[in-house]
């Protein structure tokens, strides 16, 4: 007797339904699901996808239920420039932010993560070696942003990606330094120029990743030494952001190795400052990573996607005064292109591994020079 299949007893519609159910089941087991959004949510997603092409809908949907993101950020004006634009795209996400310099930011996250009390979703930083160690400990979340292939700079794939580009420059107060004298600031030989004696400021060593690159140049280069830079030049030492504020106020005439983002911010406010970025250029990136046990991982991913999108990077560039980390975002900062502005023509080659390895030695030399230079 021939075996009769169940399907033969079904109507045509029934067979279609059975086929669709089978397909959906196969799709689910293969990890392929159709996320359904409400009409309003779909509208928001469509707008977001215009800004972030290829934005994964699942992340968007899950972020809608997470409703907030906590960002441990560095001191640029993200709340004034970037957060409002992010909120326009993702109004359902509340941003809680915590601002500090890179060292304290990372220290706080590390203490919280190691004790299992993660508060941050996203952590911005510039201390590569320490974050690499955190990644090895499993404290850095994994995520590859959709724009990863367009980013230029120091990348640890899956862990952290650059969110800006910073160049360290020599800045001067235009009320105290003539443009003729300022030409000398366009080379690193100026570090030893006696005409800046008593008029120059440096950032203190604890400033973090940014300044270790600068002092690596001092240590490894031929331009000067710590003793000459701190002692003979009678350099005044400030925390990095304060250095530029003191320059703007006129407390000092020249600031070596100033972070150009701080300079752009004060220039925008009308401060009488200009700067030149010598060759070889000292260029590095701030980056951000998602915490391994982020309380709101999908909202964190949305933030990362937004900041690394073209729009996000344009805000970083013109709004925050930082270089973009995307290769397809031109530098549109007002200072760039001014007759007094000088950009580097090539960049100092380094690896963060080498720099991190030399930090204890650098710190010891710095502290010895500071002690010797006691006023």
């Amino acid at each position: 007797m021939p075996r009769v299949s169940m399907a033969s007893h079904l109507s045509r519609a029934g067979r279609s339904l059975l086929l669709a159910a089978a397909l959906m089941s196969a799709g689910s087991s293969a990890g392929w699901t159709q996320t359904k959004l409400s009409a309003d949510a779909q509208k928001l997603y469509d707008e977001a996808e215009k800004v972030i092409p290829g934005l994964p809908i699942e992340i968007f949907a899950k972020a809608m239920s997470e409703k907030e993101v906590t960002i441990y950020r560095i001191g640029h004006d993200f709340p004034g420039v970037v957060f409002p634009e992010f909120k326009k795209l993702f109004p359902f996400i509340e941003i809680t932010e915590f601002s500090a310099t890179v060292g304290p930011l990372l220290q706080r996250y590390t203490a919280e993560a190691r004790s299992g009390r993660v508060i941050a979703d996203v952590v911005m930083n510039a201390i590569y070696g320490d974050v690499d160690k955190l990644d090895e400990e499993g404290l850095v979340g994994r995520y590859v942003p959709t724009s990863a292939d367009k980013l230029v700079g120091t990348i640890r794939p899956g862990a952290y990606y650059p969110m800006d580009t910073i160049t360290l420059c020599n800045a001067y107060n235009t009320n105290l330094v003539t443009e003729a004298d300022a030409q000398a600031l366009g080379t690193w030989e100026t570090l030893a120029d006696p005409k800046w004696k008593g008029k120059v400021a440096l950032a203190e060593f604890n400033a973090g990743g940014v300044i270790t690159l600068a002092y690596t140049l001092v240590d490894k280069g031929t331009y000067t030494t710590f003793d000459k830079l701190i002692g003979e030049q009678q350099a005044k030492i400030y925390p990095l952001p304060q250095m530029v504020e003191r320059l703007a106020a006129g407390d000092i005439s020249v600031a070596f190795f100033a972070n150009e983002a701080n300079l752009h911010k004060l220039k925008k406010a009308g401060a009488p400052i200009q700067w030149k970025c010598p060759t070889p250029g000292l260029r590095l990136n701030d980056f951000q990573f998602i915490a391994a046990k982020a309380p709101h991982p999908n909202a964190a991913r949305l933030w990362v996607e937004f900041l690394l999108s073209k729009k996000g990077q344009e805000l970083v560039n013109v709004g925050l005064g930082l270089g973009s980390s995307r290769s397809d975002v031109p530098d549109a900062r007002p200072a760039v292109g001014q007759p007094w502005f000088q950009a580097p023509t090539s960049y100092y080659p380094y690896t963060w591994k080498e720099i991190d390895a030399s930090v204890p030695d650098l710190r010891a030399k710095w502290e010895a020079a500071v002690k010797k230079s006691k006023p």
Partner: protein
Amino acid sequence: MSWLTFLLTSWVVAVPVGFLVYAAFTGGYPGDPASTFTLQYVTKVYATKAYLDPLLNTLYLAFLTATIVTPCAMMIAWLVARTDMKWKETIGSLMPVPIFISPLLGTLAWIALGAPEAGIINAWIGRGLLGMKGNLINVYSFGAIVFVMALFYIPLAYLLMVGNLMRMDGAMEEAARTVGCSPRQVFFRVTLPLMWPTILPTFLIVFILAAEQFAVPAFLGVQSRFSTIPVILYGAFQQGTLPPGEVAALATQLVSVTMIGVFLYRRTLKVSRKYVVVTGKASAPKIVQLGGWQWIALTAVGLYFALAVILPCIALVIGSLQRFLTPHFAAENWTLANYETLLRPTYLRVIVNTVLLATIGAFFTVLLGFVIGYLATRLKGFAVVGADYVASLPIALPGLAMAVGLLWTYALLPLPIYGTATILVIAFVSRFVGYAARLATTSFQQIDPSLEEAGRMVGMTRLGVIRRIAFGLVSPSMVAAWALVFSFIVVELPTAIMLYTPKTTTMSVAIFNAMESTGAVIGFALAVVQLTLIMIGLLIVRRLAVSLPSMA
């Protein structure tokens, strides 16, 4: 109740210190299975030059500050309490104001006033008015550190001394005058020696507070390469540049310094019992006629207020209205944008956090202080004495060290407190319960227990007596204590800066962070708002016809 109070007080105060000591001798993070007993951190901190130099700096700074503060405060207290100086009541009520400006805000203000090239005083008075080529003052110097700290510790020392001066029995001074001593001789031969038991503890308390101060040397000491233990401790903890065991050992070093101060303070208290000057049968002290010294005295006091209040407030307001700090007041540099920035949710939350934490923290601090004060004056026993002693420890414990201990205590223990406002409230209670307990003790000492005994005789329970009689009698002091602790919490920095999280940031922390990273002018705007909040609080207290207590 005594034991409950003792255990509660010990928990909030002694346990964090215990964790600190534990971490100093084991290294690693608390709960880290890899940490073992070791003397390496303690040896390094206590016996190497790298740390002995900052230790000596800390002791020197504290000693010099206390040496300047104590006689200045004594002089103002004497002028207010014992002379016919004009407007002395007004001056007396204004004396606490610099406490609420705090050393942190004072530092900001004096950077704007006294920065070498760009300070307002150097630019306008030095170069502008006097035509100087150099600088009139340099705020980035050791002298300036002592100056700023002294300005803002003088009122505290004043409050510690003025009460005793007012209540002093005038009989001995009268006797000296009767035998022909001049007012000057009476002051130096009778008044001053009688005040030693108040002067010495005041000196020690200022010494302890100056030793633990970190904001002033952190901002002003970098240029002069002057480093103290609190500055290193804060930097090491924030930057993670030292192993946790070394950080803990540093914190214990700071505690050791202040504990020596506490030990000496308690020794002087024992000696002071031989010098009772406030008795039940006191005769009113004679008011000294200043005569021709009147205007000199007023000028001196006026100069102090100018330096401690008027100039700093002007500098803070000016800084808050600028796009960037500058002594050149061009029209285009004035802006309200800094205040607009404070309307952002982040800063509004900071302001609300501060008011809530200060209100709640002050309430629990005064409540615990009230209980300790009542028990200390009405009951006897080990638990009572223990609670009183433990409560007085935080006056001597550096806020930074306390915060490190609290951080590790609650990071380790499985209590959902870490990262919440609760840990901040616990920290503030720990920090200030000593002041509240002392004020409560002083108030209860002045009240005859027979009133409460009468209550018990008519059938009231102990709790009923406390609630309806004891609290009623001391409530004005407790409201004043609440106002004082509220203000202390609003301006408190060393503890808050170690324990805050994004959702529990206070104004002092936001101001400090603004100076470090986000922009000084925002810090100035926050400082003005903080001052305004405190002034509103003090005005409310004055409307309640309550005056701030002296702590003598």
